[in-house]
């Protein structure tokens, strides 16, 4: 069964990618969507077997590497964590595949697009089912590749190509950290298989590793390296710059890769390696700090952006921050629960915005929208459901998961917990504000688009709307149905051994259920507050934003320009790298290597050849002179050698 789940999309990708021309667009769509429907269905079966049956499945496919001490297999480890990820990945992927049939209906390269989507799904499934670090890394790189291909899908658009390259390069930084982490793990444990590694970690407590002049705590070092990998993939503060640019890709890609699945790989990885992180309070504190900072940082930027997809992208970034600080305070269940619910409502928001963009003839700037409420009512309704779920409206998906995270942050005794709690609450306020701002700017007020665009505004077709309905259902119900299992009373039965807590008796998830009333109320209060501010600023007094940005010009500029992170990176890294590159190219390569190497050799041969040609004067006496000179030289040489002879 797991083979079908994982390899179905792979086979579909191969067929659609290599034989797309023979299959035709329709054939490719049927094959890929069919494979995903099957995978999605089986994933739910798996979740019920594993999660509610309380078992763990190990499936070995074949030996991968058997070399000296290094042995590992292609194998699946399917526990509840994996099963949850299977459901998230396959469900969203399946819906996105179907949505793409409608969304990409005008694109000439449908088969290629579907093949990439399926390839991505396969890589993501390899990542979540891995039973060792190397296989996980394979999937990790695979999703990076698919992400690159899909961001740059419209390869004739320079901005898309640039964004694809940026995503790839920024991820490289993270992947480098991850790879170093794996090396370190192999070095100290002699294995890369999860079960073996996790069993050995407790023995390594307190050991140090010598690096340059420093003695670093071994486990903390490993965790930080792994977390750098997670930061790259999950767009955490510092390595987040690729995610907003990645919105250059087609919207279904944004929904699948840059909201629901790939960006959560970092969260999954930290949860999967919780048996390591648990032994390093410092690393957990670092995770908490980065997560909480990202949550507030991305939220501030989200309040000022005008591109509808970028707002959601920053929102994703911010929500990923929530997940990470939940991980940091050992509230793994809450983090994965938020991952689970977030996948539904964020995919819903993205696909909804895709529907809006589709309706607006590929316009993404919210300043040119407005008043769409009546023209595309179903999309509007779906977007509102997504927004309610995101902002944590009671009984919707986000309400359970996000509030749980904030409560856990309050209850935790981690050193960073207080910071995380306040950042989390404040970010929730901003989340509410920018989410409603998006709704108001897009769907309310007067239309600000041109006449020709307005005339074409239409509700999307059924291929696009059906996935929205399914996702909306998820956004409405996922939290309510699954809360007891993910974070509630059935927590331990459900997760089994998938999530590790060093101090099981002192479960922060348990403590989170007994926090003061004002803590429970605070997310709800700030959510309402954010909503009211948005209503005031964009409905009641629409001139407010302009006044605000005028009064707090510098603050606004800071947020609008994304805290100048891109500019700082350009200044510190990109431009020096480019300058170095140009220097090495012009001066190093052309002026030194080429000049004295190939070009120089060729030029000197030519010069020598011309000189020889010049010697070949055609005059007999020149030739005779050369001969006599040769004889004279040889005679001199011989006499010199024989020491002047004997007589």
């Amino acid at each position: 069964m797991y083979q079908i789940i994982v390899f179905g999309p792979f086979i579909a990708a191969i067929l659609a990618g290599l034989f797309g021309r023979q299959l035709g667009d329709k054939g490719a769509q049927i094959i890929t969507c069919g494979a995903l429907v099957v995978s999605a269905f089986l994933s739910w079966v798996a979740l019920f077997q594993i999660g509610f049956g309380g078992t763990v499945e190990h499936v070995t496919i074949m030996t991968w590497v058997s070399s000296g001490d290094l042995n590992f297999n292609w194998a699946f480890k399917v526990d509840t964590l994996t099963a949850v990820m299977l459901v998230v990945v396959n469900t969203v992927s399946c819906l996105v595949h179907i949505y793409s049939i409608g969304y990409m209906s005008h694109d000439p390269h449908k088969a290629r697009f579907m093949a990439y989507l399926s390839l991505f799904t396969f890589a993501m499934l390899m990542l979540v089912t891995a039973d060792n670090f190397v296989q996980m890394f394979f999937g990790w790189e695979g999703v990076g590749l698919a992400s690159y291909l899909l961001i740059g899908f419209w390869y004739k658009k320079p901005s898309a190509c640039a964004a694809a390259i940026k995503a790839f390069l920024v991820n490289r930084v993270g992947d480098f950290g991850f790879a170093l982490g794996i090396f370190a793990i192999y070095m100290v444990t002699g294995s890369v298989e999860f079960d073996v590694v996790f069993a050995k970690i407790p023995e390594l407590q307190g050991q140090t590793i010598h690096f340059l002049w420093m003695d670093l705590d071994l486990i903390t070092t490993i965790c930080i390296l792994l977390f750098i990998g997670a930061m790259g993939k999950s767009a955490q503060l510092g390595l987040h710059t690729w995610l907003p640019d990645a919105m250059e890709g087609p919207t279904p890609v944004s929904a699948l890769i840059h909201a629901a699945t790939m960006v959560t790989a970092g969260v999954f990885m930290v949860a999967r390696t919780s048996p390591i992180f648990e032994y390093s309070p410092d690393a957990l504190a670092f995770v908490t700090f980065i997560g909480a900072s990202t949550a507030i940082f991305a939220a501030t930027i989200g309040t000022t952006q005008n591109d509808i997809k970028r707002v959601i992208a920053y929102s994703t970034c911010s929500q990923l921050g929530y997940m990470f600080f939940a991980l940091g305070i050992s509230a793994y269940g809450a983090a994965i629960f938020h991952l689970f619910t977030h996948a539904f409502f964020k995919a819903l928001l993205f696909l909804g915005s895709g529907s809006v963009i589709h309706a607006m003839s590929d316009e993404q700037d919210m300043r040119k929208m407005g008043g769409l409420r009546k023209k595309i009512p179903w999309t509007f309704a779906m977007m509102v459901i997504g927004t309610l779920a995101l902002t944590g409206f009671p009984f919707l998906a986000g309400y359970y998961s996000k509030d749980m995270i904030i409560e856990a942050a309050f209850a935790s005794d981690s050193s960073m917990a207080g910071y995380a709690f306040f950042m989390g609450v404040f970010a929730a306020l901003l989340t509410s504000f920018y989410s409603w701002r998006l709704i108001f700017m897009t769907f309310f007020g007067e239309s600000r688009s041109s006449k020709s665009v307005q005339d074409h505004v239409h509700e999307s077709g059924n291929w696009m709307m059906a996935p929205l309905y399914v996702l909306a259902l998820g956004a409405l119900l996922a939290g309510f149905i699954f809360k007891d299992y993910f974070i509630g009373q059935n927590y331990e039965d459900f997760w089994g051994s998938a999530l590790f807590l060093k101090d099981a008796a002192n479960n922060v998830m348990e403590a989170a259920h007994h926090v003061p009333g004002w803590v429970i109320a605070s997310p709800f209060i700030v959510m309402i507050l954010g909503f009211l501010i948005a209503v005031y600023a964009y409905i009641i007094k629409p001139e407010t934003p302009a006044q605000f940005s005028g009064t707090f010009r510098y603050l606004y500029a800071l947020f609008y320009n994304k805290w100048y992170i891109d500019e700082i990176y350009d200044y510190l890294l990109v431009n020096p790298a480019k300058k170095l590159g140009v220097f090495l190219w012009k001066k190093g390569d052309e002026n030194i290597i080429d000049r004295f190497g190939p070009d120089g050799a060729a030029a000197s041969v030519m010069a020598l050849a011309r000189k020889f040609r010049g010697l070949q004067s055609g005059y007999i006496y020149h030739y005779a002179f050369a001969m006599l000179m040769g004889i004279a030289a040889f005679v001199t040489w011989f006499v010199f050698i024989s020491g002047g002879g004997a007589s």
Partner: protein
Amino acid sequence: MTETLLPDLAPAYGEIFMAIGAMALLMFGVFRGNKSTELVSLLTAAVMIVTLIITVTWNDTAVYTFENMFVVDRFTSFMKILVLVASALAVFMSMQYFKDEKEERFEYPILVLLATLGMMVMVSANDLMSLYMGLELQSLSLYVLASIRRDSELATEAGLKYFVLGALSSGILLFGSSLIYGFVGSTNFTVIGQTLSQASHGPDIGVIIGMVLVLAGLAFKISAVPFHMWTPDVYQGAPTPVTAFFAVAPKVAALALLVRVLYVPFGEMSESWTQVIVFMSLASMVLGSVAAVVQTNIKRLMAYSSIGHIGFALVGIAAGSQDGLRGLVIYMAIYLVMNVGTFACILAMRRKDGMVEDISDLAGLAQTRPAMAAALGIFMLSLAGIPPLAGFWGKWYVFKAVIATAVADPMATNYGLIMLAVIGVMASVVGAYYYLNIIKVMFFNEPEGEFILQKSRKLKAIMGVSAALMLLFLLPQINAPVLEYARMAAAALIS
């Protein structure tokens, strides 16, 4: 009494037959005039083939005759076979050319025959006298051949240049011979060798200078740097069939003679002459490769190519071992086939309005004459030394031998030999440029004009067979006899 009066003629039957044949054909030609050129040519080739058979059947150990002035052993046999094959093919290749040019002269094949006779004597020479006799017989014939087209300015210039410089080199050689005779007291190679080996002190300065002068005279014939300067001018100026003849047979003969002179009389002085050979080898390889880069005339290019190839062959002498000599012998055999094939192609470069000889005239040959382009392509790759073609193996054996010598030396003082191999390989890389350039011109440039369809079946056969040999040399059925015979030939001089 008769036995003492008449020397043993048996070892020289081939040469004697050629001499009689040449005179008979001359008489025949004189009476029949230029109309008989084709017949005379065929008969000349027949004489050469008969001589070849005589040479092949003589398969004995070393035999000396004519007061030890003349030697026949496996080395001479092998080199004579090469000379005869090259000369016979040159005669075959020339026939169509002179017919097309309406320049048929019956003297041409007879002169080739006489030159070949001179070469045979050179190869077998074991005395400074027989050396000079053979050399001059060869040279005089070649001077005439170079300017056989009396009305062509270029050809006469080439002939004159060749004659003047050749005379100078002959003078130098003679002067050297007289010095050697004066200091050693004999002209016989064997005697000189014995005398030098028995000398309690080092060789006399007169012998040294004499040897250098003889060496220079021979180096002129093989056109090794710095005695090469005549080569490009003569190759370009002489009629193409003559150039084709020049390029192979005289080189083989002169090289055979050089080897014998170095090993038999002056074997004792090998340490000093090795340095000179190394220098000439290096200089020839580098100049042959580099100077050819800027050439536009294909005959001139082949002149530089032959200078370079002589440099590679000399590497085999520099190695100073039996393997080195074997490498040289193999090299010359392969060189023969490559060059004959290439010149067959050059002889086929004829347009409606006459012969052309610029590299640019080959443009687009792959489209107009694909078979010829393929053959010429194979020759060029082989000349460049691209495996698995024969030209690569020629270089392989000489370089292998020289490296083996350098490595075997316990004192490791022969790093010069390693340098020789390294620079040689680099030179062949440079040389690859112009060989590949010809291929590029043939296969990638747009055709401008077309060669007329080659009528001569002989040329086509030569092209085809040589190309096939180049391609198939790595088959043991083809290379094993050559390698084995070459080994025996080398063993005759160095045991």
